[in-house]
């Protein structure tokens, strides 16, 4: 079990906690707490080791740990759902696929721990004052984290290795209970780590003037941005996990020659893409909530993100999300060739493509540009007469909502291409669905127009009816389809009848997701500007500045490439592990 150094560390931490529980649970007296003001390190207090750039090192290790952890935490979440689906539908394909997903997770788990340990070491080495302060604030919670990590390891190993031993009947329920425990521990781990990261952005439980610890660990944990980040990361992890296993399926599809196995991985790729998009659809709304909470906590911080030095990042974010949308839709459109009736729906693809590409273009249109005096004179101002208005939030909200609605339509078309409804009210049901789309999209556009004529402070509020319209279309269309397609005549889906080109779309998803997560991490950290802990502990290190977008982009690319190389290597290993040399004759 203790097969890597980090697990040894976890084991020692657990032993320490068991022997000295007061480290974690003893309440500090008021006098001691008030005395412990936040440290004020000067530049000379930051260790300089062999000319290494501490921030870049910490950045790299933190991102690698986060990418791997997001994947490792997400996969058990949807694996247990599939396991449950397989059990109640008696379709073993789901069970086998969930087991295979977990196999990839097992390969990535050790790497997650390794990068986590390296990150911790880097932080303690280069930022001892900050880490010392965070340990004062969170006290025994850090040991609790180590204990949870051990529990995560135990439940993960048992969940995976007991799969075939507890496959049917009551045993399956016991197995799913272990999975539930694994997910509970995994989510708790994430929530605890989120508390530390969000405390640095919106500290609570400490004296605002001195940083002295005046509250409990719980006070510091439930800081203003904790729950918005928890929700955002929970959804993003599912989308990310789906994208990575989709890439695994695509890799196996491309590498495999046997048609039957190709069909299996084609089906896995489709399911993974569905999971990725299902996690992705509500993500913008969680993002709105997070940003609204950032504004509520500190208007300055919100403006720094959306209207200040970081504003251009959201144009890059738009490019990445647009790329994800285009790739996911392209994959779905290619998927229509799997069904015999796919061509009937294929004629609508061009219209969906117009909306997706149009939305993408609106999203990447900036409001203002940095221009020379001559250019401003030629343009008649810093904003383009017609394109400038597309740069503000009402246009972007309209674009993203329409893109989400039409991505869902792509899914619905594929789903329906293999089913012919037999209920008597099928025609009326279809008309209701069409009306739902028309009314919903009209509402999204009208709410967008209203956003232009309302004061800036109410623009975010104008996006609420748009979100409600989008979710209503999706939810009601699903409900109607469930009833209308009950007992439907099904036609064969030719799994494996997919072009190789379509599989590269499944690779675009994890690459864009990973880069996007790196970019969002850069934004989240940059919001603290020159503070380790915002307004409490100043960052006086040599790297206490926000790097340019180009510098950040270069760093994120190197990290993403490293991560993708590791993951593709894991896929290769997985394929190697399942191959067997034939017995010599």
């Amino acid at each position, binding site marked *: 079990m203790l097969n890597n150094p980090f697990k040894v560390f976890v084991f020692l931490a657990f032993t320490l906690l068991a022997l000295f529980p007061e480290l974690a649970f003893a309440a500090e007296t008021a006098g001691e707490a008030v005395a412990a003001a936040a440290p*004020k390190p*000067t*530049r*000379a207090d930051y260790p300089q080791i062999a000319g290494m750039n501490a921030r870049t090192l910490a950045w790299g290790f933190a991102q690698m740990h986060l990418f791997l952890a997001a994947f490792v935490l997400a996969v058990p979440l949807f694996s247990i759902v599939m396991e449950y689906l397989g059990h109640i539908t008696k379709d073993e394909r789901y069970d086998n696929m969930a087991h295979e997903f977990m196999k990839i997770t097992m390969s990535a788990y050790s790497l997650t721990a390794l990068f986590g340990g390296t990150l911790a070491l880097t932080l303690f080495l280069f930022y001892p004052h900050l880490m010392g302060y965070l340990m004062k604030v969170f006290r025994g919670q850090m040991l609790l984290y180590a204990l949870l990590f051990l529990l995560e390891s135990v439940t993960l190993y048992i969940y995976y290795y007991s799969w075939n031993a507890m496959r049917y009947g009551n045993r399956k329920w016991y197995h799913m209970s272990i999975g539930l425990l694994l997910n509970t521990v995994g989510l708790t781990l994430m929530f605890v780590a989120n508390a530390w990261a969000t405390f640095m952005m919106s500290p609570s439980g400490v004296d*605002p*003037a001195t940083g002295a610890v005046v509250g409990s660990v719980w006070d510091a944990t439930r800081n203003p941005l904790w729950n918005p980040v928890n929700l955002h990361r929970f959804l993003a992890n599912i989308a990310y996990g789906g994208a990575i296993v989709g890439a695994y399926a*695509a*890799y196996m599809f*491309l590498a495999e020659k046997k048609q039957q196995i190709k069909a299996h991985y084609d089906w896995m790729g489709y399911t993974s893409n569905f999971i990725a998009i299902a996690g992705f659809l509500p993500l913008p709304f969680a993002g709105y909530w997070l940003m609204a909470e950032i504004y*509520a906590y*500190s*208007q*300055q911080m919100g*403006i*720094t993100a959306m*209207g*200040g*030095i970081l504003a*251009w990042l959201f*144009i*890059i974010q738009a*490019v*990445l999300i647009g790329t994800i949308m285009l790739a996911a839709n392209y994959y779905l459109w290619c998927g229509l060739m799997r069904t015999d009736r796919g061509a009937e729906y294929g004629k609508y693809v061009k219209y969906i493509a117009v909306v997706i590409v149009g939305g993408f273009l609106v999203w990447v249109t900036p409001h203002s540009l*940095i221009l020379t005096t001559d250019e401003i004179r030629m343009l008649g101002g810093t904003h383009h007469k017609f394109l400038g208005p597309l740069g503000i939030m009402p246009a972007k909200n309209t674009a993203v909502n329409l893109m989400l609605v039409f991505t869902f339509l792509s899914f619905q078309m594929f789903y329906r291409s293999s089913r012919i409804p037999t209920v008597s009210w099928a025609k009326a049901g279809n008309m209701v669905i069409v009306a739902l789309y028309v009314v919903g999209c009209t509402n999204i556009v009208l709410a967008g127009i209203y956003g232009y004529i309302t004061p*800036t*402070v109410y623009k975010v509020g104008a996006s609420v009816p748009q979100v409600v319209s989008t979710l209503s279309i999706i939810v009601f269309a699903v409900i109607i389809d469930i009833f209308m397609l009950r007992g439907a005549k099904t036609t064969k889906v030719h799994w494996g009848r997919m072009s190789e080109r379509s599989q*590269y779309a499944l*690779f*675009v998803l994890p*690459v*864009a997701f990973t*880069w996007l997560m790196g970019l969002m991490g850069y934004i989240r950290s*940059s919001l603290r*500007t*020159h*503070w380790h802990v*915002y*307004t*409490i502990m*100043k*960052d*006086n290190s040599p790297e*206490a*500045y*926000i*790097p*340019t*977008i*180009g*510098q*950040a*982009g*270069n760093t*994120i*690319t190197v990290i993403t*490439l490293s991560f*993708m190389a590791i993951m*593709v*290597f894991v896929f*290769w290993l997985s394929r190697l592990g399942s191959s067997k040399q034939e017995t010599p004759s």
Partner: protein
Amino acid sequence: MTFARVMIFSLFTLLAFTAFSNLVPQVQGDPPQEEKVDTVSLDMAGMISLGERLFSGKGTCTLCHNNLGRAPDLLELDLAKAFPERIADARYEGIAKGKTGAKAVEEYLIESMIDPSKYVVTGFGKKGSNDTISQMPKVDAAPVSLSKVEIDALTAFLQDKAGLTPTVPLPSAEEAPAEKSDSDDEEEQGPATTAVAALEKYNCGTCHDLEGSEADLGPKLKGIGKKMDNAKIIEAIIKPNAEIAQGYEEGTMPDDFGEQMRVSELNLIVEYLKKLPE
């Protein structure tokens, strides 16, 4: 082979993202630079000018006080009309209540900066607070952290914009100077409060015969008060190479005391030197 294909594909996708991130405008976000202000020579015109720079710089006022509607646009509003109206507003219960004139505006402005929720202009309160809680941070606390002199300078700037004669006091030598910074490698010990402490802090006795050191690397300073007036002594400290005493070499004495010393410390040393017996 599949490994190589997908890695090359991933690489090209990443290069496209990287290229785009390098094409957009590149701005590095440096920590706010503390402006060094000579509080001794600062007159009211300098205070107004400092206030204007703080308004768009360290004070970060323009983040919200602009034409986007998040806070009153102080650069566009008719302040001569707006300030008296707010003080006369029935909802206003602050220290300037019932007062008029430039002094009342000064009190109102300073109060609104250090306790923004004392009075919130209609329509600009936190959502759901019915204009009882301001969204504005207290400017004397982190992250803005303006000093008293800087708050006075901002007040002077806004009074001037309102067509009033600024009523804020000019900073005295004892006041915490605007150049105070807790960043970089500044010593944490704070300003010296006695002449002897200041001499020790800047190691004057290492070269000069001060406080019984009998050092002779620098000129003898006994009776210096009889030979030089205040201005000359100050110049000798902050610009030591402007005039070199006979028998001593140029460049021996550090020439950055003007940046290192607080005004209060410089004054303490000058007073001490003037009183040195022959």
